[in-house]
């Protein structure tokens, strides 16, 4: 069983064109989709474009979802493809930091923002295939097997990409924060 009863009902309602069901799916997954898009592009306006494309694809392709795979994995594949499509479209992305709402003081938030911006920019300089593995691992906290399923590659490839990404990030961030 890859879907629980609630998910299945929601997806089936969405497949029948139920607008409320789509709104519920959107509500559940919007932060996930937007976060991946933002971490991959580094630009909030590009991330909005990617997230919008992903949900429009979801709406148009939901009828093709048969439930053989987990819905989240299917959705992750849509986001990953949207990210790579935007990348291939040749858009120039400028990584920007985003301030997260928190109870920290202004100084703490500024320091955090500086660290976040630096890490975000360093990640943004990775090759797309390394960057996506890093995002799925650290933004979504997915296992190697889950990442491999989403990217359609063996878990060994995920491990080797992550290993390469770690080495590059460590070299670039060494002395600053690591």
């Amino acid at each position, binding site marked *: 069983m890859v879907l629980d009863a609630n998910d299945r009902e929601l997806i089936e309602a969405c497949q029948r064109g139920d607008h409320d069901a789509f709104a519920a799916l*959107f509500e559940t997954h*919007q*932060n*996930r*989709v*937007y*976060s991946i898009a*933002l*971490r991959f592009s580094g630009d*909030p306006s590009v991330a*909005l474009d990617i*997230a*919008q494309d992903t*949900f*429009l694809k979801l*709406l148009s392709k939901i009828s093709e979802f048969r439930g053989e795979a987990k819905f989240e994995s299917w959705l992750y594949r849509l986001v990953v493809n949207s990210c790579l499509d935007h990348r291939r479209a040749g858009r120039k992305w400028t990584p920007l930091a*985003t301030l*997260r*709402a928190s109870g920290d003081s202004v100084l703490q938030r500024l320091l955090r923002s500086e*660290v*976040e911006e630096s*890490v*975000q920019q360093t*990640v943004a300089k990775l090759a797309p295939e390394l960057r996506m593995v*890093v*995002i799925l*691992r*650290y*933004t*979504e*906290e997915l296992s190697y097997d889950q990442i491999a399923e989403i990217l359609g590659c063996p878990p060994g490839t995920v491990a080797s990409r992550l290993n390469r990404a*770690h080495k590059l*990030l*460590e070299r670039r*961030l060494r002395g600053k*924060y*690591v």
Partner: protein
Amino acid sequence: MSKSLETLLHEELGRVPAPAQLWDRVQLPRTPRPAASLRLAWAAALLVVSAVGLHAFLKSEAAHSPGLVRLQAACHLCHGGDDLQAVTLRGVY
């Protein structure tokens, strides 16, 4: 500030909330901009229509000009009217 790379990545690459405008944009998708060739074709068509309109306007203005009527009357004195319209129009244009 020094910490392990994994801890740093977990902390700094976490999820962020999607902006409220995302729902609006999903509800009202961007209208695709027409292709450049289509825009060029529209511009060319507009130019042709403008040129034809201007030509027709100038032609009708010239035909109804009092100066031209006086010129035609004067020419009748010498040329007697044969092909005068064609001669006059060739002279005007």
